[in-house]
């Protein structure tokens, strides 16, 4: 039996298994000259998606992976909007007849093929991002060379492998290291914990929400091995809890256009993103007191990417994140970073969640507002007094409000922008004393 290329849930898939999955495709008319064609792929069976992806990539085909939960009309609309030539939609590959769509565009940049992703962006309107496979290969080489701590670890990927984070950093990086990643599609928490136990030297790729939930289910005496965080840095108390429950807590930072930008193999404080990957040139502020937008340049192509994130390098050359530029609150010319305010309030006994956001103010330009969720009723006057001893004057929220819950976007993230807008809409400005 040949070594597995990857596992999906409990099942190993070897090269022979993958060849079997894609058998017959090479003879089909749609795959006669795959280079430059865009294939939209929405397959329920994750092993079939991965086998197809690993087959199409070296052929120079462009691929738009679509999350398996997507209904057919939505998948078709995505495929059409992104100019795909064909849509492959169904449970498994054998039963799928590629559907021909309008777009048969072959652009120069598509040479060698591209991975097409949709970025949610901050405006809510999806943006198409096409990254050449050769850019992704550079990212993979840099990621593997730079992130040496992962060499002996087996990625357990419990996030969608139709998205770059799970696909590139989880699956393809493991393949680059010659390790078979374990992809988990069954989100039953007891099942995920069992998979992690079965792979003792694991490196878990999952959303911060999933990781926090797993930690709550994990028996007290048990620890996870290595865990990768991505996306917005976690609040300080959550980070501390996670650090206590795993041997190694890593954080990576990136965006859809550039892929992974920086990795920290030991996150000791919120916002620490680690050293930038060697294939990129990254600019940011010179210190915590002088942050600037994180600017990314891909060395090989000269492509420049504005992250819209504020950050800085410390004296050791590690990158730190402070806030989304849009979320930064400008109080009379002084920048307030929501995370710094939230971390203080999360230290108050009983407060479970806290979100700081901005409201326009006639005198100060903007001011800080805070909503929190707590286990019991909290006297907000007392809380404000308590916070005055721990925050700079411009950081002290002018509105502090206890709420039942803080609503989130479909991706589980809090939108500070939406909180700001909803408060303005509700005409609650007079509450701001």
């Amino acid at each position, binding site marked *: 039996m040949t070594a597995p290329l990857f596992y999906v849930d409990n099942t190993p898939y070897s090269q022979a298994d993958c060849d079997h999955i894609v058998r017959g495709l090479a003879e089909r008319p749609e795959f006669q000259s795959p280079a430059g064609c865009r294939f939209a792929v929405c397959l*329920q069976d994750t092993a079939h998606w991965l086998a197809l992806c690993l087959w199409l990539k070296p052929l120079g085909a462009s691929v738009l992976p679509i999350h398996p*939960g997507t209904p057919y009309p939505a998948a078709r609309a995505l495929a059409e909007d992104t100019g795909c030539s064909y849509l492959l939609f169904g449970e498994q590959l054998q039963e799928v007849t590629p559907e021909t769509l309008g777009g048969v565009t072959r652009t120069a940049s598509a040479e060698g093929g591209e991975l097409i992703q949709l970025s949610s962006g901050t405006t809510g309107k999806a943006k198409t991002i096409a990254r050449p496979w050769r850019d992704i290969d550079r990212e993979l080489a840099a990621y593997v060379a730079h992130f040496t701590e992962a060499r002996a670890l087996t990625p357990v990927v419990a996030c969608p492998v139709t998205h770059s984070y799970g696909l590139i950093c989880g699956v393809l990086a493991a393949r680059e290291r010659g390790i078979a990643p374990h992809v988990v599609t*069954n*989100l*039953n*928490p*007891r*099942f995920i*914990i*069992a998979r992690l136990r079965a792979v003792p030297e694991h490196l878990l790729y999952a*959303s911060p*929400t*999933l990781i926090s*939930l797993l930690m*709550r*289910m994990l028996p007290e005496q048990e620890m996870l091995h290595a865990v990768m965080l991505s996306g917005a840095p976690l609040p300080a108390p959550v980070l501390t809890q996670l650090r206590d429950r795993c041997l190694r807590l890593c954080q990576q930072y990136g965006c859809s256009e550039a892929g992974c930008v920086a990795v920290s193999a030991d996150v000791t404080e919120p916002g620490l993103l680690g050293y930038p990957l060697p294939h990129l040139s990254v600019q940011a502020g010179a210190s915590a007191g002088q942050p600037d937008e994180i600017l990314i340049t891909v060395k090989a192509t000269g492509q420049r990417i504005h992250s819209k994130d504020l950050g800085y390098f410390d004296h050791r050359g590690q990158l730190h994140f402070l806030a989304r530029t849009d979320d930064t609150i400008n109080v009379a010319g002084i920048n307030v970073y929501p995370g710094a305010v939230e971390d203080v309030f999360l230290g108050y006994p009983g407060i479970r969640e806290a979100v700081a956001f901005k409201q326009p103010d006639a005198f100060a330009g903007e001011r800080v507002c805070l909503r929190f969720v707590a286990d019991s009723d909290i006297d907000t006057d007392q809380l404000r007094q308590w916070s005055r001893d721990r925050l700079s004057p411009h950081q002290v929220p002018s509105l502090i409000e206890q709420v*039942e*819950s*803080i*609503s*989130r976007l*479909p991706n*589980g993230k809090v939108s500070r922008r939406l909180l700001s807008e909803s408060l303005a809409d509700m005409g609650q400005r007079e509450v701001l004393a």
Partner: protein
Amino acid sequence: MNRTNPTRSAIETVIRNHLPDARLSVFSAKARLNADLAIDSIMLLQLIVHLELEHGLHVPEEALLTHQLETVEDLEALLVATGNPEVSL
């Protein structure tokens, strides 16, 4: 409220207490978790974790959370008692 089915009322309680974005007003045995109650995969996971930690109900390790798990009834059928006698409803 359903007083005759403790598993169903545990599900309803967890949704009320922990999933503010779910559409609890249409809660029933036949309600579809995603299409009717607006519970996505991460919310489903939260639901399962709270059912285990607060109500002593768990989904066995081998159970699959796939698209066959569609309604409140389907979830009820998956849940078994953890065997923790101190569990409260």
